């Protein structure tokens, strides 16, 4: 199953993903407050981290929802909220350890990432390559490669990296 993977070492905090998500969600505004993905940035701490729903295998939001408004899309694996069933109790927001569910104060329902039906806008708008929509093993593979290059560089004092 594919997911939105995050490589924080590549994120520059441009917020393009948030603008794209906001537009996909609202249909008429790139105001980042409508976004379901969130990029945390702290300059003093030299910290930048995009966070979006992991669509957990065991999703606490889904387990806790008293209205059974949260289900898993069989096709994409996305954990999705049915706004017509959502009672607006906010239990899911309390249950999510990562802050990936927000409250729509106009519609009075919870909202979260739905993977755009399997074609996530955040990834298509990620100009740094930090976000990818891929199998999780693909991320592991890439991380191993990056780590390998780091080791090579440290091992030879930066003189030569296998670059071809």
């Amino acid at each position, binding site marked *: 199953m594919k997911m939105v993977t995050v490589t924080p070492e590549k994120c520059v905090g*441009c917020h393009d993903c948030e*603008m794209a998500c906001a*537009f996909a969600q609202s249909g008429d505004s790139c105001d980042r407050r409508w976004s379901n993905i969130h990029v945390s940035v702290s*300059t003093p701490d030299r910290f930048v981290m995009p966070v979006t729903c992991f669509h957990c295998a065991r999703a606490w939001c889904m387990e806790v929802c008293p209205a059974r408004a949260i289900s898993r899309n069989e096709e994409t694996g996305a954990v999705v909220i049915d706004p017509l069933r959502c009672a607006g109790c906010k239990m899911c927001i309390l249950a999510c350890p990562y802050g990936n569910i927000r409250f729509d104060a106009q519609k009075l329902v919870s909202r979260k990432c739905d993977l755009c039906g399997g074609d996530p806008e955040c990834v298509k708008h990620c100009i740094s*390559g930090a976000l990818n929509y891929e199998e999780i093993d693909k991320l592991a593979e890439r991380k191993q490669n990056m780590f390998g290059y780091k080791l*090579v560089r440290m091992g030879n004092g930066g003189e030569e990296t296998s*670059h071809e």
Partner: protein
Amino acid sequence: MSETRIVKTLCRMCDDRCGIDVHLDGDKITRIEGNRDHVWNRGRLCIKGSHGLEMFTSPQRLKHPLKRTEQGFVEIPLEQALDEIAEKIKGIQAKYGARAVGVWKGEAVGFAQQEELARRWIHAIGSPNYFSNDSACFASRWMGGGLVLGPQGFQADVDNAKCLIYWGQNPPNSHPNVTQQINRARERGARLIVIDVRFTQIARQADLFVQVRPGTDGALALGIIRELIQNDWLDHDFIERYTLGFERLKEYAQQFTYDYVAKETGCDAAALIPQIAREIRDSMPRTGIVVGNGFEHHENGVNSIRAVTCIDGLIGSVDQKGGKYLPVGLDIRYLPLYDQKPLKELEPLGADKFPVLYDFRHECHTMTLMDTILSGEPYPIKAIVMTAANPAITNPNSDKVRKALSSLELFVVRDLFLSETAQLADYVLPAASYLERSELVTHGLFHTVTLTNRVLPPPPEVQDEYQFFHDLAHRLGAGEYFPWENEDALNAWLLEDTGLTLEELKKAPSGYQYARPRYQKYREREADGEPPFKTPSGKVEFVSDYLAGYGYPDLPVYIPPKTNQPDPDYPFALVTGARKLPFCHARGHNLPALSQALRSPEIEIHEADAQKLGVKEGDQVRVTSRIGSIVIPVHVAVADEIMPGVVQITHGWKEANVNRLTLDDTFDFLSGFPVMKSVPVRVEKEG
């Protein structure tokens, strides 16, 4: 149910020209996405790019020509508009001389072809006065690099670099998809150094970030040069065989000690210069140094760019894999008439004051133009034909720009929208967007050429630039220079010397690769008995006899910016001209959904300065330079996002137009670029 399809073409919401997939349902565009097969952006697109749809479908799009009357703008038929414009141009040229008419190209409509068409047209009707946005952006980099390496394209070979130095450039905002290119190189072990006045987005991933005061980059570059020479981290073979003036540069760089560089730049030079130099040593010649627009808007920008480019020469990274690559060009035919009708005797405006700008770019000087329109000196200029520029927002001293353009006898603007500048025009003509035209576009670094697809035909009275200049030229007796039936016929002619055909290019909508990368081409030229480089000496020039011939210093001398000695009345150094991701200069602000991405202009000010002024996030301040004043909300920058004493305002917002503060009488002495990144200003709490 109508048929859905995808048409591939290039984006032109900024100048990076990413590959796009335009989705259509019948003849209706439904969405725009990145083209996965395009080498530049690999399927990704910034928010501007996907909002090309919002631009295209905007109800504000101009569809009919407008004429200014006492009752305001009224719609008139296209043929009538062209007839009237042509008659007025004839009258003005008869009365004041051919050179009383100028043309000015901006960037808001098509790709690059409009530039050459505008140049061709203005010379065809007998005037040498071609103006453009390039005399406030880009041309200084071309000149600074070109003075050292020769006038030609040069780009850091990002993909193959072992160390990338982004200096005065923040790709996430200005060249968004370059960010993924940088990250691909980093993924393979490349190091990243960022040198900037601000802790920018790209700085967030830098292995080393160096912060300098505005306009002091030249001092740092010369400090790095001194360090490389002292440690003998040089490519001696390259220096001996292919460069000019090493001993002079070496001698000059001696004074750029750690102490002096620290005093000028405000950075810890004793620690940072050796670190930068070691990164260069470890990566050379695969050191890709990128010089950004941050260098350009200072009194000594070109020389700072020359100094940085000298580093490429010292380490032999010029035209090396992973270094400062000189792409193989494509022999597309040249439209301007500088050979057939140079018109130099007609004194192109500004060429006397800024001869190097004219020699290198054949650009007249837009700041001089405003004074000339108002004063009639050195000769009258009474008509301007402008394609898709918005200088009422983007040129320095906007108040003067508005006054000058409003006082022309004839001011014609072609654009997609009734921009702030178009509102000053006598005639506004609707222009075809990038989705309604077909042009030849090259991506030099990847050696690709793309024939952009006319996704939909423009509405009946909406013209592409070729048709517009063709129709006017024929009315003005210069039809012989515009013999092609339409844009497609022109494209076929442009390709004739390349051996390529339009049909071949149509089969490669994601770009046709016309050449493979070839490095160290200077060796090939040397072997063929040609000068290795296109400079006057044929070598990489650390010193320029050409500049000395004009009475300028031959070395890339450093002159401290005025803001290093703060004026008590204007104690802050104002930086402007850096983009925000959702907008391209003045463009995009009129699109409702996109403009919500950043709803307000702001002044970035260091937290210590904000505290001293007694202002917090969102408070209004008044910013005043010696020519004007604006009121704008505060954004408090934390840590080293900006230096104390430095403030930043992004241009393009009509609500708080920073160019009402920027100076149009203080220039880079070589390029004539306006000082927009070290403007002395005062900041006061408002209300």
